[in-house]
Structure formats: C-alpha cells, structure tokens
C-alpha cells in the first residue's frame, strides 16, 4: 500500500497546471500575466512557477505544491477516497464536480496527508484552486478537520496551504458549518499545544479566510496573494469609493498586522524547515 502512495506522489509533481495547458497549447512558452514576459514553461516549472522577471507567483496545483515542499517520496495521503454528495440537489452541482474531478484528477479541493519536510514529520494539507475555486464543502471541511485531529494525536505540526474562494455555495449552510468544524479541530490542537502553520496563497477569501486560514500560530502568505473576507466588488458597491490598488494583498495584510510574514515561494520550503526545527 505504501508503494502505491509513493507512486501517486511522484505523479503529482508532473501534472501541468490547467492554466499552463490553456495559455500555451504547445506547452513551451508561457506569458507572465503581471509583467508580460514570455517564459519558457520548463524553466518556469523549475523556478516553482515564479516569474523570473517580476517575481509573480503563478497558481500552483496541490500536486505541484506537494512536490515543491515535501521530501521526495515522503508523502502519504489521507482520506483520498472521500467524495462529495449533492445534499441540496443544487442545480448543476454534480455535473460541475465531475468536470473538476476530470480536469484536476483529484477527488476534491484539498489534498491532506503526512510526510516529511527537510526530514521533519508534519501533517500537510494543500487546497487546489482549480477544483471549484478551492471552495470548502463537506469533504474539504471533513478532510481538514481529520488532518488536524491526526496532527493532534501524533503531535505533528500541521501545515496547511490555503487557496480558496471561500465556503462552497452549492452545499449551502453545510459548507458554512465546516468553518466551525475545522476551527473546533484547531481549537483542540491549540489546547494540546501542537503547532499550526497557515500558508495563505492566492486566493484565500471568504469563509476560508474567516476560519482556519487565519488561525495559524504562524500565518505566512505568498507575495501578491489576494487575502480577504469580503469580495472587492461587494466592498466597492457598499462603500462607494475607490479601493487602494494593493487592497487585500498579502502586503496590505502584513502592513495592517494580519500576517507574520510574506515569504517568496522560492524561500518557502526553507522557511518552513526552519520553523519546524524551532518546534521540533
């Protein structure tokens, strides 16, 4: 069984992101949406999908993220078999889930498991914004809560990479309640004095930012990541004034005291290893 998981992990690192597929049919070049530089796709992958010219962080899939953070061959997935239902019989939900499963080769919007990072054991969760915008429904909530429970039992630090548009509308109030479920699991971790590191990546908004994403003992964000509670348009309509350009970026949040640090993806693994070493 371990061999199987081992193989799965290797496969993760090679799936090209959906965006890469779309924008460069031949998969050779990719244009940076921030500075317009044409980048060689292979080099971009090697540079952890960070633009060499301006430092723009391209979105990363869960498999890519795991490949970039966890020690090679040292990731063992939890609860991969959990599948969403359609509890409200919501229009088109089942169809959309299927589409995203085919597109991402994932069952749901979060991958959880345990592994080692720089030799330090940790429970790891990674959200994937390609799957229903990384939104949290029952499965995402359950997987994250279970990961936190295992981290508590094993006394392993829990590192969670957030990328989510918020709670999943199609599961209605059940999605909302996952905010409480995950936060309750983190409360137990907190009580048991087990380390929780939240890594906020682009985007981390709505119900996810208003629950586990903001509850790290250490909150780290990637540069330029959109992080916020309410959507920009909703705020603009409500307050009827122009919002600052950097509004709800990682840098904006850092300035307003909401984050411990903003760390480039190129230094993220080393930063996490350092943090794990402090808490070993």
């Amino acid at each position, binding site marked *: 069984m371990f061999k199987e998981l081992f193989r799965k992990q290797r496969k993760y690192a090679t799936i090209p992101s959906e965006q890469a597929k779309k924008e460069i049919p031949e998969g050779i070049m990719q244009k940076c949406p921030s500075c317009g530089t044409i980048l060689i796709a292979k080099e971009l992958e090697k540079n952890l999908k960070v633009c060499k010219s301006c430092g723009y962080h391209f979105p990363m899939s869960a498999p890519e993220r795991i490949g970039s953070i966890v020690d090679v061959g040292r990731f063992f997935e939890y609860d991969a078999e959990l599948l969403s239902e359609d509890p409200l019989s919501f229009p088109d939900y089942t169809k959309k889930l299927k589409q995203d499963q085919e597109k991402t080769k994932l069952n749901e919007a979060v991958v959880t498991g345990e592994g080692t990072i720089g030799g330090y054991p940790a429970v790891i969760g990674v959200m994937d914004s390609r799957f229903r915008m990384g939104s949290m429904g029952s499965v995402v909530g359950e997987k994250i809560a279970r990961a936190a429970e295992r981290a508590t039992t094993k006394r392993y630090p829990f590192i969670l990479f957030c990328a989510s548009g918020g709670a999943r*509308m199609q599961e209605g109030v059940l999605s909302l309640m996952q905010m409480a*479920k995950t936060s*309750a699991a983190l409360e137990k971790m907190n009580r048991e004095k087990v380390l929780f590191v939240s890594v906020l990546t682009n985007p981390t908004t709505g119900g996810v930012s*208003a629950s586990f994403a903001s509850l790290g003992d250490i909150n780290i964000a990637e540069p330029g990541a959109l992080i916020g*509670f*309410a959507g920009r348009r909703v705020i603009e309509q409500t307050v009827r004034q122009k919002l600052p350009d950097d509004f709800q970026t990682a840098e904006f949040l850092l300035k307003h005291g909401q984050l411990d640090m903003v760390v480039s993806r190129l230094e993220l693994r080393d930063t996490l290893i350092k943090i794990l070493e402090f808490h070993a």
Partner: protein
Amino acid sequence: MTNGYLPFEKPLIELRDKIVELKKFTEEKAIDLSEEIATLEKKAEKLEKEIYGNLTTWQKVQIARHTSRPTTLFYIRSIFTDFMEMHGDRLYGDDPAIIGGIAKLDGRPVTVIGHERGTDTKDKIARNFGLPHPEGYRKALRLMQQANKFGRPIITFIDTQGAYPGIEAEERGQSEAIARNLREMAGFSVPIICVVTGEGGSGGALGIGVGNRLLMLEHAYYSVISPEGAAAILWRDASKAQQAAEALKITSADLKSLGVIDEIVPEPKGGAHRNPDQQAAYIKKAIVKHLNSLLKLTPEELVEDRYQKYARIGRYLEPASKGSR
C-alpha cells in the same frame, strides 16, 4: 390598515377589513349580518391557514427581514432581568452592531450577546443595520471569555445580513476576528446556546454562533450566502434571489433536516412581529429547556458535546476505508 403587511398577506387583510366593515355596519344600522360575518370569518380562518401554513422560502425571508421584526434588545429585555450592557473590545472601539452584557435568566446569571440591527431609522444607522465590524466580534469574544471565567452560560442572538464588507473592516481583520471566535467558542467550558432570530447571514452570523445548541425561529433563515449574492453568482442576476433562496435550502425546516439546528422555535401566526411578547415567551421556554439539560454536563462534557455537534455536520461519501484513522 395594511401598513406593515407583506404582499402575500393582502387577500387575508382585505377579507379581515371586510369583516370589520360588516361588523360596524351591523352595529350602526341594526341589521343582522351575523350569518355573513360567520361565513367570512370561517373563510378568513381557512385562508390564514393556507397562507401561513404554506409559506414559501422567499415569503419567510420577507418575514425574517420585516422592518418591525423584534430585535435582540427587545428579546433581551423580555426574556432576562437585570441586563447590564457592557461595551468595547479594549482594542479599538465599541461596535453598536453587536450588543452584549450580563443578565439573569430566572435568577441565574448568564452572558447575553447578539446582533442588534436597530429599531428606528436613526438607531439603524447608528448600529450599521446590524452589520458588525471586527471590534464587534472582539467585544463578543471578550464578553464570552468573561463568561467562561466566571462560569456563566452564554446565550447569543443571531440576526445579521452579514459582517460588514468595508475597507476598515478588512484592515482591522474581519476574517481573523470571526475565525478566532469560531475557535474560541469551540473551547469554552460553559453551556452555549445560540438562537437565530431573524437573518443568519453567513460568517457574520456564525461569528457568534458556535454553540452546544442551535435554535432557530420558524421563519428565520440561515445561509452561506445571501439569496441575492447567490443569484448574482449563479445567474448574474440579483433579481433571481427567490430562486436562489429555494435552491440554498435556508429555512428552519431545511436546517433541521440537514442536522444543523436542534430545535425550531415556533412563531406567532404571521411572524414574530405580530406578537413580540408571545415570541419572546416561546424563545425563553426553548432556552430554559436546553439550558437545563446542558447544566447537567461537566465542563469537559460541554466542550466535547459541542465538538461532536459540529463534527457530525456534513454530507459525504466514504467508500469502505482502507487506511486507518
């Protein structure tokens, strides 16, 4: 006469007006119309049952949003005695969109907290229509910590469209304020009872809504997103809010069947605003009942009871698991 009535109540109101007219006529002209009146009264009764017994989701939303629907302050004053309001988060300010303090429930000290949307226009504006800023949630947290310290049960009243979507709210950490409350409420070792009295607007409602028991008024709604917001996302058309409201399954009956709430608190015919005192009595009865059962639990059991309540919520498929937990 029709002031404060909702559009779908019109046929009933017209019929009632007619009955009043006939009665007046009977008195003035000394003509016996008692038979006609009796027939109409029967008809009105039937119509009333039809209308209020089969409210659509959207009609319930309209009742939940009714301008004369009782607000938290009314309920606090009706249900509790000796209410002393406490102010401020000790960090930034005092948010009038969330009120709280200490009070007595049948003589027992408790902490009460709730969204307050305001009653008249001036009050509503001052309270930002019950849309809290981070300092509101932080005030609530401070008061709950105080309750936890002194072993007082916590009762919260939920009635908000949502947390305020504004620039300063984001700057001061709206997300963090709500998130922290969710985590801290999960850990308090006193009984927590939350009552959704009107609008349960997403994270802004949940920010004071993690309890051992979640009660909901019959016509209140609780949703992950406003019907208007969902319609805008789904069909790019906020006017399809009625459809969205149906799809989102947001009524008290929906939430009961989804296993989210523990009890539906009945409303007087036509809604809480038709008889606020009776409504307060219904709520009090439900709170007292649940509090009495929670008071039998030890502090550790209370925390575990709450943990299990939320652990159970959610629907998913789990094919026979191969791995171990």
